[in-house]
């Protein structure tokens, strides 16, 4: 596997506060990699260091094979949108892209291509300040695509977008991946990331908690097997049988839930037959990326840190 981004003990301190703590990133080439973590976890600071906006306090790394300490060698091959779209309010969307195209010595036809790709051709001459939040976000993505990048770094690209807009971004990222572009994207919409990401990096309090494929992450979490007896009065008996067999189980109304691997469904079925309990429902539920995230970081919605009860341990990650 070739890597587009690699860091070794990448660290950033702002005074006494450690924003990123010895992060060892490894982002595969040609994949969509999600970057998730609670607010203030260090995602944006990490991205800023990769883009040469913030100087690392310690650590080394490479981006597209060039050293992190020389961003001028690789930035022409990167498109990025960090911390939302910021442009000059009085200038039109088109003029804002012209500013960036001229700066990077890119042909101006790329401006119209970019506007077309994000569906802003008709509004390209309107001032940026008149744009809706979704339009601003799309202009930010158009700006990131200007250099026809090999690597796209996007910080919360779906922020403020309506469901249709989110769907468009999802399609766009997929098409970019199909074109061979590496995408490194942070988002709070974990369900969205789960749909488009091949690889995921989880960070909390500046430290990497996990990096690897989404499949591996989800598979490493316990699966829930849910069963419902035909007669509700059989539920306690089924639960007792499971607990006696050493299973981690609980009841929820007429339902019985077992936390185990998927093979447990067969054991549960055999137990029910042995106990002469007829089941009207038996299913397994794999954990989603969001549930895995909550279990590992102990936070809700990637925002304010709130401990949640969980017996699930973290998968080995960066440090």
């Amino acid at each position, binding site marked *: 596997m070739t890597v587009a981004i690699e860091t070794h003990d990448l660290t950033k301190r702002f005074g006494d506060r450690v924003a990123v703590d010895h992060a060892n990133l490894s982002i595969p080439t040609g994949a969509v990699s999600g970057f998730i973590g609670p607010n203030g976890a260090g995602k944006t600071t990490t991205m*800023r260091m990769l*883009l*040469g*906006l*913030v*100087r690392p306090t310690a650590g080394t790394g490479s981006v597209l094979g060039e050293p992190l300490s020389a*961003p*001028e060698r690789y*930035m022409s091959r*990167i498109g*990025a949108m*960090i*911390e939302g779209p*910021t*442009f*000059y*309010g*009085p*200038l039109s969307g088109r*003029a804002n892209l*012209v*500013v*960036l195209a*001229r*700066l*990077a*010595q890119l042909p101006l036809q790329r401006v119209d291509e970019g506007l077309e790709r994000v569906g802003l051709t008709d509004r390209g001459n309107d001032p940026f300040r008149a744009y809706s939040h979704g339009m601003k976000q799309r202009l930010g993505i158009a*700006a990131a695509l*200007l*250099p026809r990048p090999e690597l796209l770094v996007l910080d919360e690209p779906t922020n403020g977008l309506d469901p249709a807009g989110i769907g468009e971004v999802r399609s766009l990222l997929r098409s970019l991946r199909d074109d061979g572009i590496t995408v490194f994207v942070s988002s709070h919409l974990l369900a969205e990331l789960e749909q488009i990401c091949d690889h995921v990096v989880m960070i909390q309090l500046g430290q990497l908690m996990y990096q690897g494929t989404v499949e591996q992450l989800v598979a490493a979490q316990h699966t829930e097997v849910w069963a419902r007896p035909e007669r509700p009065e059989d539920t306690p008996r089924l639960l007792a049988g499971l607990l006696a067999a050493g299973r981690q189980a609980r009841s929820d109304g007429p339902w019985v839930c077992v936390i185990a691997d998927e093979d447990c469904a067969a054991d549960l079925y055999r137990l029910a037959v042995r106990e002469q309990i007829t089941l009207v429902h038996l299913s397994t539920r794999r954990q989603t990326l969001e549930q895995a995230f909550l279990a590992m970081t102990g936070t809700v919605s990637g925002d304010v840190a709130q401990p949640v009860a969980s017996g699930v341990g973290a998968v080995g990650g960066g440090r």
Partner: protein
Amino acid sequence: MILAAFRSEWVKLRRPSLFLSLYGAIAGVALLITILTFALAGHHFRGGGGGGGGGGGRVAITLAQLAQPDALGKAFSGFAGLLGIISLAVAGAQMASEYSVGTLRNLLIRQPRRLVLLAGKYLAVLTFSALAVLLACIIGAATAFVMAHVRGVSTSAWTSSAGLSDSLKAFGEVALAVCGYTTLGIVVGNLLRSPGAAIAVGLVYILPFELILSATVSGSDKWLPGQLLSAVASGGSSDVNLHTAIVRALAYMILLAAGTAALFVRRDVTA
């Protein structure tokens, strides 16, 4: 690459809300000052040194003085204060707003060579200021010719070789001084990173602070940057000659530009 950064910056500078309104205001003020100068030439004002009586008082400028070869040059020098303040404010706001709005990160993503970006931006704002000087001088000169005809002032001395030389020299001095004010604007904008604070601090320093200091500390106007720029614009002053003023002002500007560049290159962009 610097040229690319320069051209990119000009896309922002030529936006109608800035370009037309500011240059329109400069043209208007140059027109007004010139008309008033000619309209009031030869008139007596109360409170001057001329004594009482209906015809007494101070004469700001006479029609005979307006017919001198250096009249246009003096008019150009008269624009320097206003143009300097405008240039300082525009440069400070252009620089600081990149930080406060957050657009600097977009620029650095597309041009990670920070010195190149800063140099292109600086040159663009310098040319913007120089164009403002040129515009003010052209409007002032054109209006002066019209008003000279109206007031019966001979303009033959203005177009003589001495007159043209004086006018060009004054234009160069004003342009140089305004470039100095622009540099101060870039410095203070980069330092404070807020357009409001940059403009306020820049103007407070140049106007009341330096004026009070030069009035209270003897000889200080030979060393204060704003006073030196003012002396450059006027072709020298009673305290410091033109050559010394240019050398000292340039030294200040080079030092300040170097400090700003060092800060710009090393600073984390977190906004």
